[in-house]
């Protein structure tokens, strides 16, 4: 499923339909001497939300643009629902909906005209209800140049999904969006997923990727360094769970005790911080100790490593190599 030289995490739970909607095989793309993508492979199944993560210049946008048929790969095969993106890009148009990272519309095109314009080229009836859903109803007659950045991105999203494509590619969809619109977009993505729409999500927002993606792939310097569900990826990191404890008498800060399964410990302000390989015994021992000292617990927080922390761990390691 994944290129042989990359770390593969087996999926424990397959989606309800195992139909491969999108496949990338040994894809390579260079710009002059710069290798943007160095031979990656992955597959995405129907109804899946697949997150493509990576720092700037990792090759995310190049991969997406080749999938969309905007650019041609130097080597490899990219297929969407069996259509070769580089050889038959015209056949992709009704199969995919794309929200580009950088794109635009004519400055004087109104929101309504844009929806009618692209719907006409997709040969579908314009679905104006989308405008209300994405908070653009009031801007229906506003020209593109009069929209804020967030509104322009919402329009771009509306245009990407207006023709009900089975595959949607979103490149940084929530950049520049306010909290409410961002939540609305996430809800919309869930609805699309429930209708078996496949979504490719390229984002810098790790919280978004963790929340929305069924699986993610992390790209670094044009290669996939890891792939799997967000939980699988976070679990394969250091594996340490962060336990923060604050007590009335600060009894934990005063002792030099070693608690079970604790790999690292430190003190940050009023909290004793423990990184545990097995949080259950650690928490039990900590609570027993506080109780035994006649101290009183004020706050206890157990946090598993986030995708962001795992991402930083991977990218920092990659940068150091």
């Amino acid at each position, binding site marked *: 499923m994944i290129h042989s030289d990359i770390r593969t995490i087996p999926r424990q739970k397959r989606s309800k339909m195992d139909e491969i909607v999108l496949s990338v095989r040994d894809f390579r793309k260079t710009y002059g001497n710069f290798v943007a993508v160095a031979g990656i492979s992955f597959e995405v199944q129907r109804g899946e939300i697949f997150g493509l993560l990576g720092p700037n210049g990792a090759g995310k946008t190049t991969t997406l643009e080749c999938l*969309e*048929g905007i650019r*041609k790969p130097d080597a490899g095969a990219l297929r969407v629902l069996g259509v070769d993106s580089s050889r038959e890009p015209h056949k992709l148009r*009704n199969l995919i909906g794309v929200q*580009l990272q950088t794109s*635009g*519309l*004519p400055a004087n095109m109104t929101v309504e005209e844009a929806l009618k314009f692209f719907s006409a080229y997709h040969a579908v009836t314009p679905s104006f209800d989308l405008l209300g859903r994405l908070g653009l109803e009031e801007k229906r007659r506003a020209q593109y140049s009069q929209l804020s950045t967030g509104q322009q991105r919402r329009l771009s999203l509306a245009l990407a999904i207006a023709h009900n494509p089975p595959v949607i590619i979103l490149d940084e969809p929530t950049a520049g969006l306010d909290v409410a619109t961002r939540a609305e977009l996430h809800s919309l993505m869930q609805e699309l997923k429930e209708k078996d729409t496949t979504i490719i999500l390229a984002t810098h927002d790790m919280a978004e990727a963790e929340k929305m993606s069924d699986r993610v792939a992390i790209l670094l310097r044009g290669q996939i360094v890891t792939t799997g569900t967000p939980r699988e990826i976070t679990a394969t990191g250091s594996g340490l769970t962060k336990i923060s404890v604050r007590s009335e008498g600060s009894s934990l800060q005063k002792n030099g005790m070693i608690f079970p399964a604790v790999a690292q410990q430190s003190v940050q302000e009023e909290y004793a911080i423990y990184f545990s390989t097995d949080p259950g015994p650690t928490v039990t021992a900590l609570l027993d100790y506080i109780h035994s000292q006649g101290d009183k617990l004020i706050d206890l927080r157990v946090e598993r490593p986030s995708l962001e922390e795992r991402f930083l761990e991977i990218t920092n390691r990659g940068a150091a190599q």
Partner: protein
Amino acid sequence: MTAFAYHFLFEFKTGLRNSTALLMNYLFPLAFYAMMGLIMVKINPGFANVLLPAMVIFVSLVSNLLGLPGPLVESREAGIYRSFKINGVPALSILATPTLSTIIHALIVSILIALTARPLFDGVNPTSWGAFVWITLLVVFTSGALGALIGVIATSSRSTVLLSQLIFLPSMLIGGMMIPLDLLPASVRPVSMLLPSTHAMQAYLGLAYGQATVLDPWVSVAILLASGLLAFGLAIYLFNWDSRNRVRRGHPALALLVLVPYLIGIFLG
């Protein structure tokens, strides 16, 4: 309504809605026409004989060479064609709809000039309105195709202006509109024959006004038609969707092929 028709309608409305387009399509050509009719005819009464064809050529050059290429370049640079491409808008539509709408705007102004040149400024009407009409269609088509080609090969707003002015300014000075071709120095005449306006004037004078011409007007018609078809064909061939993606089907220098009919004209002339 078909997608192409909707696209054309949008481009046509843009020609009226956008202040720069409105200036290039209507305000500047009509203001210049009024000025030439009021002043030039007084200074040089002989200019009344060519006021109508000269102003129609001027309108066509302003709309198509000065007005059309800029938005094409700006749209490409702004990533608008990327949006169009992923939504299935064909390259032909992207080039044909603005070109066609600019041509229609130029024809509307040409009709206004044709209707007013005589009553307002004593301009001389053609002896053959039929010939005048089809030559006008040919002139706006050729200018439109050249404008589209400039829009495709120019890489920035600055180069767009340079390329457009490379045709526009010589056309105004030595393109037969202000100074008849037979009055130009012999050394300048070959340069003049590289300009579409020169051949347009020869075609109008010979076929619509029945006057003697320096060049065979039918050769001029053939040159305009060939260069128009060649320019539009090259514009489609060299069209680039994306300013970030410099991969093209051909080198922009291929656009110079559009000069071939004019060079043949010099050889024949």
